[in-house]
Each structure stands twice: as C-alpha cells, then as structure tokens.
C-alpha cells in the first residue's frame, strides 16, 4: 500500500529537483553534493546555506556516507543522479510545494530556525535576506555582534524606563550617567507586541537595562546609558528604573520585590534568592507608587515570539529531512513532511545541535532531552506511520544494539550487509530482505520502504515480541463504579451509567467500519465489590458480591468480559438498574486497592491486557488492603517535610502497579472528591501504568456533567496501545539516562507502559558517555512495542537525528525553549518527591542562570555587565521559568489543596510540549473582532493588558475563562450573552447561549476548537470583572505578581539578571 503512495510523489519530485539544479547548479554543484537539494532547489537558499555553513557542515559528510554519492559520478549521470537523489524522501517537500525559482519566502521560513533571519536588520527581513550580502563570517556570536552596531536604536529603549527616575532615585550616582533621552514612544514602536520588526527587537533585546549598582563604571561601553544606578530606596536594584509616576507607564507600582529584604546595601550581597519572601506578596512599605520600573513592553514578549513564528513558519510544510533543524513552535500550525526524521508531533528535542562533549554540555547546563509522544494523533492531512511487515522472522535489526532497520543503517558490500548507524556493528542482510544498491550506495528499493526512508513507521511484531510467545488477545475495558453514598448523591453514578450505554458503541477500533473487538466488564463497589455477569444468554444480569476484600479474587469467569454487541440487552438492563439499586444506599465507606486488584485478576483470568476505568469518590477508609488515612496537613506546606505529602502513604500501590504493568493493566481514575482523597497515593497506580487521573472536585451533576462526559468519551475512545515497552537507543556517545512520564521501569532502559494512549508523552533525558562527532551527529531511535486495540502486536519506531557541535553558540542557536521548559517542569515536579520545594525552585533558577550565564560568557560579544543578554532561542526562558516557579505545585497559594498539587504534579508528568506551554503560559485572547477564520492575536498575560471595555478568553489547558470587563460594550455583551447588561450575566453559566449572530457563532467555534485541541475538556467559566471569581482568573495572569507570592515577569527578569551576573563575576 505504501509504495503506491510513494511512487508518484517521487517522480514529481525528481523533475522539480532537476529543474532546480539546472538553474542554479553551476557554481554549486561541485561543492554541494546533491543531498542538499532541498536548499539548492531555491535560489535564495544558497545564501543562508553559505553563511549557515557551520550549520550544514555537519550534514555534509553524513549524507554522502549514507547515500554514497560521489561527485564525479553525479556529474556524469546528471539525470540519473537527480533521480536517485531526488527520489529520496528528503526532497519531496520543498520542491513539491514551492515553485522553484521565484518563491523566496518559504525558504527563509525553512531556515528561520537558524539565526540568520533574526539578524537581518532591514525592516523586511525576509525578502531582504537574499539580496544582502551574506552576513557570513561571524555566525558564531551573532547577537553581541549586532548588538553593538545598531546602538542608535537602542538607547531610546532603555532610556524610556530610566529617565524619569530622578524623583526617587536622585541620589544614585549611576543614574546620572544615563542619557536622559525620553523616547518612550520609540521604544514602543520598536518593541510593543504587534509591531512589525519583532525580530529586530528580539535580537537587541538582550541588552536589557540592567543597572549595575556596584560597578557602574565598567558597564559603560555602549549601552550603559541604559542603566540606572542604584536607587536609594530599592538600592539593590537599580534595574527598576524609576520612571516614577510617569503617565505612559501606568504599571502597577510593583514595588521592587527584590529590593526590600536586602535593604540598603549597594551590592548584591547575598547570592541567595530568597524565594517566596523575596517575591512575596509585597507588604509594599516602600512608597512604591512613585517608583517606575522596567517597561514590560520592552522585555521579551511570548506573544511576539509566537506570532513571529506563526507568521514565518506556518505557510510552508516542515520537512524533517534536514538534520538539526528546529521545528516551528508548538503554537504554530504547520504541516509536517516526514523525510527521514520523526515529526515534531512525535518527538521534540530541547536542542537540535547537541554538544560534542560532556564538558560542553555540562558547561552550558542546557538539558539534552526529547519529549516523545509515540502514538500522537496526526492532523488529517498527514499520513499516519506506515506499517511494515518483515515476515515471520520479525523486523530486521542490528545484531549488537538491536536497533531496528531505519534510514540510518548503511548498506555495504553490495547490499549484503548493513552497518548500524548507532553502534557501527555490521550485520548480514537476511536473504529475503536483500536488495541491490545503486551507484550512490543506496538500496534500490529505498523509497519503497518506509523503514528506509521515513522517520516514523511501524513494524508488525511476531510472536517473539509477545508475552509468553503467544499472540495477544484483544484488550478489555472494565468499568468500576463507586456506588457509595457520596457517589450516588453527587449524581455521578447516574451519569456514568447513562453515558456508558451510548459510549460503548464507540470503543476504540482500527477499522471504523468494523465493530470494536474490545470486550467490556462492569463492577460496582463501595466497601465490597459487585461483579456483574452480563453473558448474552442471560435474561437479566447477575450480580456477584465479593466481600472478602482482603484477598481479592474474580468470582466469575464466563460472562464478565463480554462483547458489547452480543450482550447489549443485558448490559443496558444492568446500566438501567445500577442507579436504582443503589439509590438508597447508606454505605459511605469505600475500598480502592481491592478494586484495582479485581481488575487485575480479571485481566489475568482473561489473559489479555486492558484498561480499568475507576469512578471513585472518597478516601478509601474501609478495612482492606490499600486502606488510607487522612494525612492532609497544611502545616507541612512550606517545610522540609512537604515532600512527604507527595509521596504515597504506603508501598502497597507501588507493588500493585508492578503487577498491573506486568499484566498490561492500565488504570484510569476519575475522582469525584468532596474532600481530601489523597491523590498522591491513589494516583500511584494510574501514573505507573500509563493511565490518567481526572479530578472533579465538588462534582455537581449540572455544572460538571459536560466536562466529565467529554473527558470520559475522549478517554474511552482514544486510540491507544496496551502492554507497551519503549526503548530508546542512541548512537554511541550519548545515552538515555532518565525518563519522565506515566510508566513503570523495572530496569534502567525499558520504559514499561501498561497502556499508552495518543496523549501520553515520555520525556527522555540524554547524557554523554563519550564524545560525539560533529561529522556524524547523534542518532536516536525510540521503539515502542505495543498491542493495538485490535489485539495486534506492533512496533512503532521513531528516528531522530540531530547535529553535534563543538561551538556552544550552535547549541544556543538551535534550542527550543518550550521543550526545555517542559523538561524543567517535569524534572522539578518529580524532584518534589525527594527534595524540599524551596530547593527545587532554587535549583531551577540556578540552572537557568547558568545556562544564560554560559551563553553570555561564551557566545555573546563582550559588553557591559549591566546588560542582560539572552540567546535568541531562549529569550523567553525567564518568563516561562517564572511561570513554572509560580505554578500551584511549586508555590501554592493558601487555597490550593494538597490534592490539587499532587494532581497537577502527576498531570504534568505526561504532558506534551504544547500542553505544558499553555499550562504555564495561558493563552489570552481579546474578543474584539471575530471575523474571518483567524484568531485574534493573543495578548500577554497581565492584568494591565485587560481593558475594562473588553471581553477576553483565557485558555489554561484545563479551564477556559471568559473575562468580562465592567464596561464592556453593550453590543458585545448582547452578542455573546444575549443581554446587554453586565449585571445580568450569570456568572455560573458553563456554556454560552447559542445566539444567532456571527460573533456568538464564531466565539463558540473558537471555544470548541480550543477544546478539541486539548486532551482534556476545558470547562468554561464566566468571570465578571470585580467579581469574587476574578481572583481565580487573575491567578492565571502569569506575568503579574501572584497572590501566592510569585514574582512578576519584570521582577523575575531582574532577579535572573542578578543571578547571571553573580555567576559571571
């Protein structure tokens, strides 16, 4: 099937590439081997190409090796070679889509990941790029380089914040050194979000006005103008340049949090970063209002970065053929063409240019990690991984490291053997797989075989890959419904039973026409378990009560797990009767451990993998294994013992999850608590088995029904694999050392997942164990062995190649901040289990400071110490990091329960990058004009961005808020709510009225589309300005100072700067 798909594309490609060559070839052909055709194809390419030489120098050797192209040969048979080369998957994307010669923009887009575009000074960077002389020679330290030259632009920027300070800061000597130009407008023009030349702004941004209090003198070179000296009041940081009382910056007088504790000493005395208090809700004793601080518009804006990336990269498909290129941001809509590396939807790396040596890596402190979502859903316009069947002997693998056949295996000896790209071992090609090589050393059938040309594909696994050497049975789903008093009263039981009746028709299947082969079973429980026999031959279901919860067993075999269609009548009868049967229950106690044990036993008895759906209401206090006690103790929060709250109460559930994983029993937990249920302990099994925890605190049928049902529907229907094992293999030199996510590991290499659904990610950290070579780059292969929902055993393979660099600058140029934040947050959240929260936070700050300091020290051109210089790729690191630090888990407010924190902690552990991004930096959309298909541009998460007259939609990944300004236009309100009066808006509504006007329709469309993008249904909450609920909403305005003491963005940036300086000095 797949060859058919491939062939036509290949042919088309060939011609287009040829054309490209013919036009541009002359000069290039000699030095540029064909594999680069992608870049060749289009004229402008040559330029970035050349100046990005250091980028690409890596690939050169590696490609020829693989494809074995010899220049001479190629010249001789130009057409031939074109064919060969072109046929490679690498080419298909670019040329296929873009008319070769004329279209320039796409190219720049393609390369935008690399530094160049950002350097261009011209207002129209894109178009300008090609025409300009290549900015070549010094790509290594571009930013500082540019930093200097265009000083003219800069001064205005800093000065804006500075000049008016005198009122307060008068005495500061440093201050006087600043040029007192007051061009706030300029700075705005340059930096404010929507402005066109954002790139520019960014590149300059590095020099954030950073007053160097102690040594004003040295910091003079160019921009020093910038920075204000120490202020008397807030002495240590002059940063906050006193723009006191200046009208244009009506910022909330964020009294410099940093300052206070440290008092008057001029220097940064303490390296310490006194977390909470420092940031802390400021008692604001200082006459803050008068102070003026850094202009928020002048600091790196996430919105701007997102918008730029969207503008530059969404128009052209992202092709994965080129090693080491950074993919578009997760916020950008783009199409992916698999040309040999896994799509970023499957794998995202923190860095696409990794240091060659461990020393370098250590010096930079940039984490080397990949966030892998092995079974990710792809948009409809991208093909899902092809299935490859290597016959009875199973997939072809390297003899030594057991890596699976992939594009990085090099065939030698006329195709009789192949050399592993990971371990270099040479393995014989089995006869049935033999194929001749062409003159470039590539197999003739290379493009017919996904495993030789694509980054992601699947193998059909043989019995050798199955448990007990037996092909697996189709999986089963078992539903466990808590029928204790609380569960019945909240309406949960009723809702679940009602919903299951229809939901059972949507069990996962691979062929949409066929019926699902997944079998189902039902159990209700309170402090005893009720199993149901729903055999199709019965007229009525039969209930079997097991009260011996201390020693769980399965009371029936036949008729417990059934096919939905066969037993439909009986099942429906059962689901009708369950709510009735327990309507008058007075049983309040529940068990939990035995419930999972029962599911496990059932799957064991049926000899299949499966998923348990637990609908549970309360802390399991009934006498049974896994009984828990209420240990919530708010007094522990903030102490060194806080970590114990995140640890499970006993080892029982860990042991149980081991057994579950061995059987392929995945547990999904839906919690409906009215009080503490100890999520930290109850979540152990779901988290270790690849399951999910959903929590609906104070569940009320009317309010929460929709959210719960949508979550449930999605959870039941989503494609998933069972009984999975994931193994990450890497080329010699690096090694996967640490893993984060919902899984279990019994050794150090195999990630065992009882269940793996399309939303789950596994984050893998790599460490050097040897030197890497710039020539070969680094390879990574993630293989996931799993049982599909139809009971087929499969292997999904994702390959990823990245470049290696010996220059730190390359590393910093090819990082992905969102992924780094994803990694950092997972790392930090996991550390909570063993480390006091404060230490975790300090470590995070420290590591980021080191990353940035390393950059400053090694990559940036020398400049004033007072300047904060951030790498282009990481300029959002501080703002995002601040969001992580302020998150409920790391810095809880008084109203955040221990359960909530444990829940979020577990939730984050398997989030992908796009979810973690919105989780930490929610999306805030002003609802002004909703015409056309595009979304309004987001605004930054700060209260000051909210207009009283507007309505805003905030998406946090878990909730949607509709914030209504007190002075919102009547027309707007009528359009949305159907009432023109602010006071008549019902703050309890959970869905918007369906009004027949374009605005309302579009808004609801937007909300629906947001919801569909997330793995969990986001409940809509309407927040009226000045309402009580606004507090919750404000909590998500993460650039502001938070009620729980989290620093504002500006404050944190200053703090970061301080830390960096500390490290540098």
């Amino acid at each position, binding site marked *: 099937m797949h060859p058919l798909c491939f062939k036509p594309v290949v042919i088309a490609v060939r011609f287009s590439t040829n054309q490209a060559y013919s036009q541009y070839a002359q000069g290039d052909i000699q030095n540029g081997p064909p594999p680069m055709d992608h870049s060749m194809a289009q004229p402008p390419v040559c330029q970035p190409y050349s100046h990005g030489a250091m980028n690409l120098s890596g690939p050169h050797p590696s490609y020829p090796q693989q494809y074995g192209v010899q220049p001479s040969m190629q010249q001789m048979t130009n057409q031939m070679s074109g064919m060969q080369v072109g046929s490679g998957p690498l080419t298909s994307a670019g040329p296929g889509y873009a008319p070769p010669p004329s279209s320039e923009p796409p190219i720049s887009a393609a390369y935008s990941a690399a530094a160049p575009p950002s350097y261009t000074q011209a207002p129209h960077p894109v178009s300008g790029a090609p025409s300009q002389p290549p900015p070549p020679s010094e790509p290594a330290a571009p930013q500082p380089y540019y930093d200097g030259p265009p000083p003219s632009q800069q001064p205005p920027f800093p000065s804006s914040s500075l000049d008016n300070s005198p009122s307060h800061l008068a005495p500061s000597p440093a201050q006087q050194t600043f040029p007192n130009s007051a061009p706030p407008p300029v700075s705005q023009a340059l930096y404010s979000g929507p402005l066109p030349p954002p790139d520019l702004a960014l590149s300059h941004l590095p020099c954030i006005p950073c007053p160097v209090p102690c040594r004003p003198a040295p910091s003079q070179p160019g921009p020093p103008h910038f920075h204000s000296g120490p202020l008397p009041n807030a002495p240590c940081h002059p940063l906050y340049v006193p723009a006191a009382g200046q009208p244009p910056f009506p910022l909330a007088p964020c009294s410099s949090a940093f300052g206070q504790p440290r008092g008057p000493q001029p220097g940064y005395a303490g390296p310490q970063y006194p977390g909470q208090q420092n940031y802390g809700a400021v008692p604001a004793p200082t006459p803050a209002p008068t102070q003026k601080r850094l202009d928020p518009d002048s600091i790196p804006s996430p919105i701007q970065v997102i918008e730029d990336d969207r503008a530059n990269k969404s128009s052209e498909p992202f092709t994965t053929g080129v090693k080491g290129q950074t993919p578009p941001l997760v916020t950008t809509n783009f199409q992916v063409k698999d040309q040999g590396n896994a799509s970023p939807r499957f794998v995202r790396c923190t860095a696409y240019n990794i240091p060659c040596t461990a020393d370098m890596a250590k010096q930079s402190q940039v984490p080397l990690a990949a966030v892998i979502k092995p079974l990710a859903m792809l948009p409809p316009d991208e093909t899902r991984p092809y299935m490859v069947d290597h016959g009875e002997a199973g997939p072809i693998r390297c003899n030594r490291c057991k890596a699976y056949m992939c594009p990085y295996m090099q065939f030698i000896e006329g195709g009789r053997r192949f050399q592993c790209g990971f371990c270099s071992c040479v393995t014989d090609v089995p006869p049935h797989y033999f194929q001749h090589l062409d003159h470039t050393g590539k197999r003739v059938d290379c493009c017919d075989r996904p495993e030789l040309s694509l980054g992601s594909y699947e193998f059909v696994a043989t019995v050798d890959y199955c448990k007990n050497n037996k092909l697996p049975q189709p999986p089963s789903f078992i539903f466990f419904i808590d029928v204790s008093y609380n569960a019945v009263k909240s309406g949960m039981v009723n809702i679940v039973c009602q919903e299951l009746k229809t939901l059972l028709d949507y069990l996962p299947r691979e062929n949409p026409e066929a019926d699902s082969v997944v079998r189902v079973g039902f159990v209700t429980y309170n402090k005893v378990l009720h199993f149901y026999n729903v055999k199709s031959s019965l007229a*009525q279901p039969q209930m079997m009560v097991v009260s011996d919860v201390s020693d769980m067993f399965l009371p029936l075999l036949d008729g417990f797990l059934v096919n939905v269609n066969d037993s439909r009548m009986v099942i429906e009868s059962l689901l009708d009767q369950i709510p009735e049967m327990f309507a008058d229950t007075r049983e309040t106690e529940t068990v939990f451990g035995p419930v999972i044990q029962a599911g496990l036993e059932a799957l064991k008895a049926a000899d299949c993998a499966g998923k348990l759906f637990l609908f549970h209401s309360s802390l399991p206090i009934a006498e049974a294994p896994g009984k828990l006690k209420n240990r919530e103790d708010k007094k522990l929060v903030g102490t060194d013992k806080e970590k114990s709250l995140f640890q499970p109460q006993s080892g029982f559930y860990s042991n149980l999850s081991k057994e579950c994983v061995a059987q392929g029993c995945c547990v999904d937990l839906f919690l409906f608590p009215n009080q503490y249920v100890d999520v930290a302990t109850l979540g152990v099994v779901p988290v270790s088995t690849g399951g999910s925890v959903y929590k609906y605190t104070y569940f009320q049928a009317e309010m929460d029904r929709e959210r719960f049902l949508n979550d449930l529907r999605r959870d039941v229907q989503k494609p998933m694999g069972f009984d999975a094992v994931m193994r990450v293999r890497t080329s010699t030199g690096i090694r996967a050392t640490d893993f984060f996510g919902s899984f279990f590991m019994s050794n150090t290499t195999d990630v065992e997942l009882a269940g793996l659904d399309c939303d789950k990610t596994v984050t893998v950290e790599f460490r050097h164990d040897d030197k890497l070579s710039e020539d070969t780059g680094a390879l990574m292969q993630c293989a996931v062995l799993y049982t599909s929902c139809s009971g087929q055993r499969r292997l999904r393979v994702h390959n990823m190649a990245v470049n290696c660099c010996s220059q730190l600058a390359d590393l910093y140029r090819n990082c992905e901040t969102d992924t780094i934040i994803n990694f950092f947050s997972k790392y930090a959240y996991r550390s909570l289990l063993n480390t006091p929260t404060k230490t975790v936070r300090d470590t995070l700050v420290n590591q980021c400071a080191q990353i940035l300091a390393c950059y400053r020290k090694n990559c940036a051109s020398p400049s004033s110490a007072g300047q904060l210089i951030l790498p282009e790729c990481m300029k959002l690191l501080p703002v995002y990091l601040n969001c992580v630090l302020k998150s409920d888990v790391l810095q809880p407010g008084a109203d955040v329960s221990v359960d909530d924190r444990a829940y979020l902690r577990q939730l984050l552990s398997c989030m992908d990058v796009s979810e973690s991004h919105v989780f930490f930096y929610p999306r805030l959309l002003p609802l002004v004009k909703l015409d056309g298909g595009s979304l309004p541009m987001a605004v930054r998460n700060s209260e000051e961005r909210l207009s009283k007259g507007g309505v805003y939609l905030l998406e946090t990944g878990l909730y949607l808020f509709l914030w209504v300004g007190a002075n919102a236009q009547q027309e707007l309100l009528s359009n949305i709510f159907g009432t023109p009066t602010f006071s008549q808006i019902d703050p309890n509504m959970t869905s918007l009225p369906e009004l027949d006007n374009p605005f309302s329709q579009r808004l609801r469309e937007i909300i629906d589309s947001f919801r569909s993008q997330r793995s969990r249904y986001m409940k809509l909450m309407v927040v009226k300005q000045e309402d009580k609920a606004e507090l919750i909403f404000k909590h998500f305005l993460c650039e502001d100072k938070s009620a729980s003491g989290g620093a504002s963005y500006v404050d944190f940036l200053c703090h970061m700067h301080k830390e960096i300086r500390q490290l540098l000095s």
Partner: protein
Amino acid sequence: MREWRVAMATYQEFIQQNEDRDGVRFSWNLWPSSRLEATRLVVPVSCLFTPLKERPDLPPVQYEPVLCSRANCKAVLNPLCQVDYRAKIWACNFCFQRNPFPPSYAGISDVNQPAELMPQFSTIEYIVQRGPPNPLIFLYVVDTCLEEEDLQALKESLQMSLSLLPPNALVGLITFGRMVQVHELSCEGIAKSYVFRGTKELSSKQIQEMLGLTNPSATGPQGRPAAPQDPAVTCRFLQPVHKVDMNLTDLLGELQRDPWPVPQGKRPLRSTGIALSIAVGLLEGTFPNTGARVMMFMGGPPTQGPGMVVGDELKTPIRSWHDITKDNARHLKKATKYYDALANRAASNGHSIDIYACALDQTGLLEMKCLSNLTGGHIAMGDSFNTSLFKQTFQRVFSKDHNGEFRMAFGGTLEVSTSRELKVSGAIGPCVSLNAKGPCISENEVGVGGTTQWKICSLSPSTTLALYFEVVNQHNAPIPQGGRGAVQFVTQYQHSNTQRRIRVTTVARNWADAQSQIQHIESSFDQEASAVIMARLGVFRAESEEGPDVLRWLDRQLIRLCQKFGQFNKDDPTSFKLSESLSLYPQFMFHLRRSPFLQVFNNSPDECSYYRHHFVCQNLTQSLIMIQPILYSYSFHGPPEPVLLDSGSILPDRILLMDTFFQLVIYHGETIAQWRKAGYQEQPEYENFKHLLVAPVDDAQEILQTRFPMPRYIDTEHGGSQARFLLSKVNPSQTHNNLYSWGQETGAPILTDDVSLQVFMDHLKKLAVSSAA
C-alpha cells in the same frame, strides 16, 4: 419347662408391647440387682430408644409437664409416681422428693387423673408454648462441578422439592465449585449472590460480616454472633418458600456448571469445605438454636481449601483402606478434623447437615461423615443425581405422616433420668453430648457419655439411640423383692409444624437377684435388641480401633455370654446348648462379623462410613435387617417363605428376594432364568409363571415405598454379575472347598474362603466349653 415356655411367650409379648407403646427395647427385661452380677451378664443393661416412635394413637396434651422441684432432678410427673390425691402431693420416683401439684391440678382425684398419671400413658407428649414459632429452614448447598446431565437432574429435583417444603419454611441456596456463592433470594430484577473464595477459611464472624449480616454497631463483644436484629437483612438469604419459589425456581433453572476450566488430567476444584463452613456460619449467625437442615449435594470429593480430601491431580487417586492403614492418606486427618469441628458447631446450634453424594468414585464421606453423624443428618449415596435412587431418596426426605406432617423434627434434646440403682454410661446414635451433669451419670463411659442430656439435631420417627446403663447397686445391699428400677426419657423437640413439644417416656423393670433368678433373667434376654446394642458398640469401637481388635472383642463377648448361659459339659462341644432366648444371638454375631459395618474388605472407606452412619441411627427392625439380611423364596411349591440366609437356599427353581436394607436383590434361579429368557411369561398358558415372576417385584416395591434411603434395586439371575450382592451375604455353607463332600445338588457353592456359620458355631462351642478359656 412349661412354665419357662409361658414365661418366654410372656416376655416376647411384653417386649413387643413395650416397644409399641414406648419405643424402648431393653437388652434385659429383668435387671440384675448388683453391679457385680450385671457385669457378669456380659451384655450390659441397655436399651434401644426411638424417641419419636410414631404413635398415631397418642394425642398430645396441650399443657406443660409437671416437674420435680428438686434442682438436680427435674423429673417429670409420670404414672410410676406415688400420688397423695388428698394432699395433692406427688412423690418423685427418682429422687423421692415430695412435690405439691401446681394449682391447675387442684381438681385431681383418683378418679379424675391427669393423663400423665395413667399407666397407658407411660409415653406422653406435651405441646408447650415457648416463644414465637420458629420456621423450618432448609439451606441447599449445591455442587456445580457436575456433568451437565447430572446437574440438570439435580436442578429438577431441587425445583421439585420446593413444592414439597412447608410453605412457610425458609429456604436458602448456596452453590459451590471453585468459588462459593451465597444467593440472595429477596431481590427483584438482578440476581445477586455473594461470592467467596473456595480456599480461604473464614470465621463465623467474618462470614456474617461479609454477608452483611452484622450491624457493625450492634456487634456483641467477643465476636458473639449478634442476634438477628433486622429480619429484612437476614432474610435476604433465607426466604419463605411461598414468597420466593418462582424466583428460586428460575434461579435454579439458570444455574450453570462451574465455569472455570478444568485442565486435562485434573479434577474440578470443589470448595466443599468452605461451602459448608459458610452454610454453618450463615445459620449460626441468623438462626441459632432453630431447627434447620443444611442439605448438601455433591458430585465429587472436595479438592481444594480446608476440608479437601484429595488433590486435583487425577493421577493421585482418592485414599483407599490400603492408604489409610499405611498412613498414606495425606488429607485424611486434617479434613476429618475440619469437618468434625464444623459438625460440632452445627450441632451446638441445633442445625443438621445432610449429605447427598452422587458420584461413581468416592466423595469423601469418610472425612465428612461426622457432619451427619453428629447432627442427625441424612447421608445418601448414589452413582448419579440422574438416578431414581437419588431422586426418590431425596423426595422421601420430605415424606409426610398420616397427619400430613413432615416426618422430621428438629433441635431435639434427650434427657435421661434413672432411679438410684442405675446410672447412665452413655449413648450411641446420631447425637452429641450436651455435657449436662447430674446425679445419674456413670463414671464408666460407653459411647457418648458423661452427660444426662444429648442433642439430636434432627429426628425422624425411626431415629433410634442405644443407651447404656450401669447398675451401681452394691452386692451387699440387696434390693427388696419386687423393687423396680425406672428410667425416664424426656425428649424436647421442634415439631415440623413449628410447635415445641416434649415427649416423656417413663419405663420400669423389676430387679432380680442374679444368683437365685438367673433363669428368669436369661429368659428376659432380648436377643434382637442385644445384638443391635452390641453391634453398635462394635461399630462405635471400629471408628477408633483396628478392625481385627473389634472382631476379637466381639468374639470374646460372645464366648463369655455362651459360657455364662450355655448348658454344656466341660470340654464337650457336642453337649453345648443355648436356651431359646439366646438361640439366635450367635447367628446375629456371625453375620455381624461379615457385615460391611465391621468388614472393610470389598467396601471403600466411603461405603463403610455410609453403612455405619445408617446403622447407628436406624431402629431395631432395620438394624437387624442390616446385620442379617432377610431372604424370601418364591416358587411354585407354595407361597413365598422366608428362608435361611444360606447358600443352600439358592436353588434353580426359586426366585429369591433379599433385603439387606441398602440393597434389594431379586435373584432368579438358574431354571427360572432360562424360562424367563425363553419368554414363557409372555405365553398365556404360562400365566402362573408370570405371576411368579411378578410376585417378588411387587414385594420389593412395597419395601421400596417405605425404605429410607432408597435401597439399590438389583434384578439379577444365576450367573449374573450382580448376583455377587446375594452371594456375598449368604452363609457360605457350600463353597468350592466342601461342595463335593456335601454331595448334594441343592444350593449353590460360593467361591469364598470365609468360614460358614456351621464352622463358626463349632468353634464357638469348642471355645465355650473349653475349660482353658
């Protein structure tokens, strides 16, 4: 001589009359007046007592019995008491306490006597009001590890039985296989059951908690089973038949075979032990001290959990006598101990346990027998539930008497009082001791002793106990001429119509001086009763002693008896003679020695347990049949006649009908068999032959009608393989060893090395007359 004959006749009448009236048969009807003489009589003073002997002519009285006011006596007013009508005072004939009559007896006089003072009411039944009437309870415990056909038959039998139960009786259902399921019967819609693992032993308290029977707040201290507080709760499992019979019929109909797969070479896992413990626990918690019947139906041996009798590996066969004697029966002791404990628990709560075991192989009755033995339950044994043997036996459990009432009673206690010269040594029968201490307990324990009260959880009209007494009067304190010893039996029980009743039987026998009146004592000997009484002792001993030891003991008793009462010249066997009152006794002993009660050869351990169970609870007539089967002969020569149980009775032109209690064998002699084969009975001119063939069948039917449990019905003929049932019973007077020496053509030789009655008697005579003995 003549006088003796008269006396004899008198004694036979006397014995018959006493049995008819009181259900009592004593080994001696004159009692030797001193301990020493009593022991010299060999057969102890003892009796067979049938507490609920059917007395259609006895109308129960509707008031409370009058008791002796002495605290440790409490004997009931009876015809033997001396009454002072004027003073309205009666004297207890056991402790001589003088008691005033209660006020309600104010009107009595010697012409206006209450029934209990009239001599013909030496047995009298009182209906008393004690608390609310308790319903009868039937708890079915059903094995589901059966073949489809067996299960179907069993289901039908059970469904049918619902119509036989009294409508207000409570019924419950427990099924078991690998798991044990307790079915809830009260629910509408969804059928509910509580499921238990078949391998885990649970305490009664745990069981009740798991069944939700205890109200946690109301649980008594020390785990004392809380009284059933909420009837709705307890009734979930035990419901009145009339309410749930539809429901239960459906439930039984839907009952499936145990669904767990049984691998090749394995037995199904059967959790009989746990099922029973749950049944016992359930009743214990809900209806303690109320009559209840646990009816267990099993199709194979328990194979897992406590009480397992054999492992699930088919290659390990179930224990045989050989294994037991070699001490190779792995599970025997543990299982026996387990079931013993269970039986005692059930018995102390007044619940009885029936076992209906139908399988081709053994099912573990040896280990489980105490469940029924101690609780008065039935044991039925068959090859399959799909046989009329089982079906009719089961049906007969629910048979009714002429009043339309069930022939079963529950929760009985039997109390025995004796006059001073006599003490109670013990009882042998389907009972357990209640450990009631009193003045009339003998130190010399026989059977279940050390008490004056026994619990008999379930009683039928034929349930019979053997009671053993000891004469304690010293030799030097003679009892005056004409003195009488008295025994009073007080049986309290729950009648099947839920009434509480008390039946009082008071009997008296004359004391006799053994030296001067030995002949009278001899003629008062009841050899039938004695044979049964001694047999029970033997069987009782056989439970704990080696078989040969018991036989030797039995032989020694017989020899001593012959020495005591035989007339002979020393060392001259030919001179040996026994009086008529003892003449049959040695023959009983001969057959007893050959019976399956004492001979394990040819009988599996289960069969032995089964036979012994029935032997120790049947009445005298049935017991005698068991010891010495009855043989009738049918021929053209005359009407059917009983013939000797002897190989000599097996003649070619006869049809024999043998009743061994457990089997009914119709045996066609060689000629008859040939005729039958030739089909003469079909020809009109040979109608007489047809009649001849039909006659024994009709007679057998008559026996089948009344016998419980249903005997195995065997129709065989000369040379048939089933003829072995007959051949193994008859006295082997002709064997392959002596056939030609007899030189006669009558009879059939038996291929056996067993000694014949003649040889046995010869030996007996020799030993009896031997001066060396």
